[in-house]
């Protein structure tokens, strides 16, 4: 798991630029499924064929980033955000572009730090003028955070655990299920453009037309000094989402998930996320509606280069997802949650 997590977290793939991470994931999953497809926006859909209900499990593979909006005559890049990027987090950090160009994030001279905004910042790629900068980077190019993953005891610190930890869970789940005979048809979707508004999952869910849907993503915790109150902690087990900004989990799906966790003795926490959303949002509103739920991995310092998660939570999320996908799910509308 550590090797997989490290590889996934360190791979380049901000929203709209998922080609590299998609190739990595495709290589990992293709031996575990019957078919692998890519759709119009670049979602990677790994399919385990079967005869039972269609189950979609989405884990977004994109990460937050920056987008170049202007190159000045001295070769400095002005930029804007791709997804939720705080200027305070970005200051002094390294970013990397698809072609490997690395830059440092600096700021204009400001009288007060609270005035720091992204349009007061720039990326320095070591160019001396516009022409030399333009050979490496163009307006519209998207960069990602740059950094290595580290393991400290049971904890991992890395960029993009949001949501490469969810991708790792989904890949390991497919590996676990590969040798087993299962009734359900599984559509494991590694989605694009989640960080810019849950876009990829929308068209993937339309295409898959699932009977039931799940997302695997990270969630916030309330266990750091003076943190906002939230009853989720690192190491407390994967969460069963109850609510976030874009979904109220179907009550029967929630109960079904709780029952499975209890039966299999998997530690879990109930998650009420006050701000933020995940792919469950667009999935549950697709076509005539799809009963949906989500498993989240608790993570601290989300959307920074130093996100932290607990490996036990990640391993337990795999066990949990395997148990869910192995359970007998009836057809939609006719007791789809019999188990």
């Amino acid at each position, binding site marked *: 798991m550590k090797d997989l997590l490290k590889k996934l977290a360190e791979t380049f793939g901000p929203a709209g630029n998922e080609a590299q991470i998609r190739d990595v994931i495709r290589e990992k999953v293709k031996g575990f499924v019957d078919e692998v497809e890519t759709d119009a926006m670049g979602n990677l859909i790994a399919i385990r064929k079967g005869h039972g209900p269609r189950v979609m499990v989405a884990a977004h593979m994109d990460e937050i980033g920056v987008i170049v909006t*202007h190159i*000045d005559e001295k070769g400095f890049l002005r930029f804007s955000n791709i997804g939720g990027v705080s200027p305070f987090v970005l200051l002094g950090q390294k970013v990397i572009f698809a072609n490997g160009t690395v830059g440092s994030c600096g700021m204009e001279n400001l009288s007060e730090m609270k005035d720091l905004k992204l349009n007061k910042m720039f990326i320095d790629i070591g160019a001396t003028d516009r022409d030399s900068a333009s050979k490496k980077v163009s307006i519209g190019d*998207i960069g990602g955070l740059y950094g290595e993953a580290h393991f400290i005891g049971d904890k991992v610190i890395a960029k993009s655990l949001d949501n490469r930890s969810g991708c790792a869970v989904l890949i390991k789940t497919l590996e676990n299920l590969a040798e087993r005979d299962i009734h359900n048809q599984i559509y494991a979707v590694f989605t694009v453009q989640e960080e810019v508004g849950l876009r990829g999952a929308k*068209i993937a869910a339309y295409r898959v037309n699932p009977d039931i849907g799940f997302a695997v993503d990270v969630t916030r915790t309330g266990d750091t000094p003076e943190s906002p109150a939230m009853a989720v902690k690192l190491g407390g087990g994967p969460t069963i989402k109850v609510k976030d900004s874009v979904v109220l989990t179907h009550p029967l799906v929630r109960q079904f998930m709780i029952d499975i966790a209890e039966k299999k003795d998997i530690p879990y926490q109930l998650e009420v996320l006050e701000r933020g959303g995940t792919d469950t949002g667009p999935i549950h509103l697709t076509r005539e509606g799809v009963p949906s739920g989500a498993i989240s991995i608790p993570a601290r310092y989300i959307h920074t280069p130093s996100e932290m998660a607990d490996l036990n939570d990640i391993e337990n999320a795999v066990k949990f997802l395997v148990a869910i996908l192995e359970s007998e799910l009836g057809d939609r509308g006719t007791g789809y949650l019999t188990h």
Partner: protein
Amino acid sequence: MLLKTLTEAFGIPGQEQEIANILKEWISGNCDKVETDVLGNLIAIQSGKEGSPKVMLCAHMDEVGLMITFIEKSGALRFKPVGGIDPRVLVSKSVYIGRGRIPGVIGAKPIHLQKREEADVPFGIDDLFIDIGAKDKEEAERLVELGDGVIFTTTYEDLGTKRAKAKAFDDRAGCAILARLLTMDKKWSFTLQGVFSAQEEIDARGAQVASYRLEPDIAIVLESTTASDVPGSKKHLYSTMLGEGPALSHSDNRLLADPRILERLKEVAEKKNIPYQMRGLVGGYTDTSRIHLVREGVPCGAVSVPTRYIHSPASIIDKDDFENTFKLMVGFLDSIEERGLPF
């Protein structure tokens, strides 16, 4: 002249019939099918060969405007904006109300009656009203109804040697380009779906249903976009500049443009020697916000005519940019004919 006719026409979101009628008359003779859908989108089809790709081009008919919401006893009309309008651009402007074009003036408490603290802050929507010269509510009600749309009275004029002023270049410039593409003698062998969309300014609603109906293989939106190349603006925040050619979008608030389409547009521009610029800002949205997420997804791009003072009573474009946007789109369609779709 189509650009003059279109920019002076009436068409706030949800009330686009006048624009649709003008366009319909203009293009009908040259299209295989022209129809209007339930949201008021005007859809023109030039059918291609059996099994050929479906290429959708989309320009929105609606303009930002106001809507009458209340009539005071005095006959003054209260209103709300429909689409993004800065209230600071409204005071003392001449307007027309409804398709009957009832003239009026946007009024406010005069400066010499304002308290000191009032004079220090700009008027908000609630401080403003429209005066149509009615002496009371009864007289006003004979002329306007609640829900009537309001447009600015600005006429189209050429400015300098290459520029033009009008209201609603956003997006009548795009409509004019699309109408010209649909009325060319030249025909392509693929299916061309021209969509003049409704209600773009209020969340791109028309394009959502039109693209669901048409199921295109690719879509390009023809737009008018902000040019902030004016005094007081820093160069890295200009976004686009007048006279530098059509602006290609890499992204906005609600779209990451398909890179393969962007690449093809650049190739065509370079090959044909058509100037172009990359739109710098990542704010705003267009009809692509909806189109690219319809059904199983539609690869999308956006090409815009740079426009100063967008969403105000008077905006300015460069006519060379307008022509070059048209030429770029002809070249892009030719490239699909020659080489197929860019994916």
